[in-house]
């Protein structure tokens, strides 16, 4: 966490993925607020870069509501609602050439979520699937997968993701359209 803040990364806590627009507004407000001066004499707080209005990439890795519903159908529905609201929020803050990335574990029950179709239906065909990539945790230095329930530190990331995971990439539908025509 300190590493992130030292590098100038904006970290937002308590952000609800179903209401991205409001969360970003709150973050922007917090960024504008003048910060108290540092303890050392003559030093002031470092000026942070303003939050971008639109993002080139909006990433949601392993979304899960963690509702703990036993009934699988209800659980899938709950998570689909989460993703639906996320896609709407993501579209609102996506740059014209931007991409939305969602990573899911492959196999059941995640394949039941039907994310590919969900994205286009949630945004009224505003998003179109561009491609799907394989998620390789070995290429990400220092990445540790955290489970939704019962974070077990003794379990390595590789074992957790042994079943494979896919990253789906969406773009604005009009951008995809122009690619197809070109």
């Amino acid at each position, binding site marked *: 966490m300190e590493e992130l803040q030292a590098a100038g990364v904006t970290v937002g806590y308590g*952000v609800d*993925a179903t209401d991205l627009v409001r969360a970003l507004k709150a973050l922007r407000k917090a960024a504008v607020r003048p910060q108290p001066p540092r303890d050392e004499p003559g030093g002031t707080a470092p000026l942070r870069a303003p939050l971008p209005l639109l993002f080139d990439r909006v990433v949601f890795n392993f979304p899960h509501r963690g509702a703990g519903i036993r009934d699988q159908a209800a659980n899938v529905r709950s998570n689909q609602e989460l993703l639906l609201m996320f896609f709407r929020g993501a579209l609102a803050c996506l740059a014209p050439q931007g991409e939305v990335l969602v990573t899911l574990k492959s196999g059941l029950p995640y394949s039941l979520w039907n994310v590919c179709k969900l994205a286009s239906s949630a945004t009224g065909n505003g998003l179109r699937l561009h491609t*799907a990539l394989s998620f390789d945790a070995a290429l990400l230095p220092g990445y540790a997968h955290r489970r939704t329930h019962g974070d077990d530190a003794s379990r390595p990331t590789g074992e957790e993701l042994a079943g494979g995971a896919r990253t789906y990439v969406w773009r604005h539908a009009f951008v995809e359209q122009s690619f197809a025509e070109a």
Partner: protein
Amino acid sequence: MAKQNMSKKGKERFNKKKPPKGEQKRRQTPSYGGPAAPRLVVKKKKGEHRDRGERKKKGPRAGGEALPLGFSDSSQSVLLVGEGNLSFARALLRLRQGQGANLVATTFDDEQTLLEARSESAVCATQLSRRPFSARRSTRRARPSWRSCRLQASRWATA
């Protein structure tokens, strides 16, 4: 032979070689009440949805490219949603060589919960390393329970 009083267009059509039977267009619905004829595959315009067709052939599992594609470009602004322990943000930061100006990481948990979770896992890890599996003790005793770790963490937090 083409008839004498035929128009030029008609002659052309008449003289044109007919395609073999297999290639002839099949009717969409038969006039009799038999089984429906197979639907004709309409050829799409050049370039239209071509990549989608290719993807279908490959199947969703195939695909040589892995995720951190183009993520090392630090000029891109990236919004991370639902970061459980912020480790993906850390990984991205390392890929970008510490350039985190355009990076926004968000998490559902508040700061306190994250700190607690981290201290818990840290306690768990230290306890695990301190008390390795020994011959004298059973494995069940040697491994601290989750509850004991939590208790220890809360003690440390208050101390």
